[in-house]
């Protein structure tokens, strides 16, 4: 699914990649808040286009566009459902305002997907794991995250090997109706699950043997430190939030309907 494509990390190093993930996350939350405050197409469009320089700086345009393409499907769905519901519940009438509201909702969704996509596209799992470790999140969760990321390629390879092993015993995964095909995956799923359980047991042994749980105050080999760029982004974030509050309370932005 291409929405997930946009969320996967790519080893491209840019100034955006080197920013502290925690700061980037705060920025994304700020955009999120701003998008929720505003129910106005023009402001939402401003929020949308404001992200583009980041995308270009990070050189992740291709993947970002792909994530939007994937989101487009869901966005259209939201739009249609919204319009249809309004149509049917207001006695089969549809005003321009209704349509504009639907567009606003959809645009809000797109802004959210877009900013999260930029976050994940410019943050490596290592970096993210480190940020989790150094935040207030309990260590167990950060550990679960990094371990999961570490073993995803291993599990994927294993799934392929298991499929090969069963195909070599005459299992045909492509044949048959839907029900039969689902049943055919049992000889693939069971070894995969059993293997995952065995693996976790071995991991647990290794963890215990390396002093897991020795103290509550773990130290860390790496330290995430804030640099110039991070402070820059923090200022931008503060600026966005301040501007949003100001515009919301003191400036009236015309709706499209009013402009027409």
């Amino acid at each position, binding site marked *: 699914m291409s929405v997930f494509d946009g969320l996967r990390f790519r080893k491209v190093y840019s100034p955006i990649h080197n920013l502290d993930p925690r700061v980037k996350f705060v920025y994304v939350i700020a955009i999120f808040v701003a998008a929720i405050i505003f129910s106005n197409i023009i402001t939402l469009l401003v929020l949308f286009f404001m992200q583009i320089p980041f995308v270009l700086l990070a050189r992740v345009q291709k993947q970002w566009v792909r994530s939007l393409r994937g989101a487009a499907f869901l966005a259209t769905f939201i739009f249609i459902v919204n319009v249809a519901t309004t149509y049917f519940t207001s006695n089969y009438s549809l005003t321009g305002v209704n349509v504009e509201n639907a567009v606003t909702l959809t645009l809000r969704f797109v802004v959210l997907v877009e900013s999260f996509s930029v976050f994940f596209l410019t943050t490596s799992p290592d970096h993210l794991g480190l940020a989790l470790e150094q935040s207030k999140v309990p260590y167990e969760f950060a550990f679960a995250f990094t371990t999961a990321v*570490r073993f995803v*390629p291993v599990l994927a390879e294993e799934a392929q090997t298991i499929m090969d092993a069963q195909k070599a015993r005459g299992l045909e995964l492509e044949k048959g109706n839907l029900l039969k095909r689902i049943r055919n995956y049992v000889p693939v799923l069971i070894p995969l699950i059993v293997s995952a359980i065995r693996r976790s047991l*071995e991991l647990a*042994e290794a963890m215990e043997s*390396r002093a897991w749980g*020795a103290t509550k105050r*773990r130290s860390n080999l790496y330290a995430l430190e804030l640099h110039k760029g991070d402070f820059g982004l923090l200022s931008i974030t503060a600026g966005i939030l301040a501007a949003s509050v100001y515009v919301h309370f003191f400036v009236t932005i015309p709706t499209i309907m009013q402009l027409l």
Partner: protein
Amino acid sequence: MAIIEIKNLTYTYPGASKPSIDDVSIKIEKGEFVLITGPSGCGKTTLCRTFNGLVPHFYQGELKGEISVAGIDTLQHHTYEMAKHVGLVFQNPENQLFALSIEKDVAFGLENNGVPREEMRRKVDWALNQTGIYDLRERSPHEISGGQQQRVAIASVLAMQPEIIVLDEPTSFLDPLSAEKIFEVIYRLNKEQGITVVLVEHRLDLTAKYTDHLIVMDKGRVRFEGDPRQILNSEETRLMGVGIPKATLLFQMLKKNRFNLAEEIPLSSEELANQLLEALSPK
């Protein structure tokens, strides 16, 4: 006092009908390089896990007898306390590495103990250098070979500077060349750092030469213990299914044919070759 002392140990896994270890008593002195071998299912893997408390704390089950490792009674202490004194390296390299970079994996034990960063950095670098993988420190575990992964596992245990390192069939998944490299690393740690090594292995042709204290187990009991040369020369050991090094077997065959070889039983190809050169060179 011995660094590992086990008295009349009997252990049964939960739900098992028979004990995996049956009345075992062992003494290992500081600085020794001990080799434990025996057919599959003999209890050597379980025995390894008693050294750092995984048995009985992690596996539960019924344990009788006394264990003292580095002066500590493992039954009264948590596994994480034992980790500072005993490092355990397991068979499968892949399932021992869980961080996203090699050096973070090596630091894991130190991080768990809350060691301050500069001290941790020094110990991690030292461990990486001792195992010859300093250049790989920023790579991810998935990118390196099995042999390199096992060296990371050894480094991550070494970083905590334990007195004892226990390795449970560490080269099972490795090719002979990588296996030899691992044994060389372990041997050097034993000779140069004075770390007590307990190695569980089947491949006696590669490892018998490193030890002078061999323990052979079968069905949960210790059958033979002592000088590997005597033990591996005996017919009983061979009949038990232990893989006697081929050089030793050849020596036995030649001796049976009254070949004029020195008395010392060879454990490696070098030793046998030297004996043959002596016996066959024109005087």
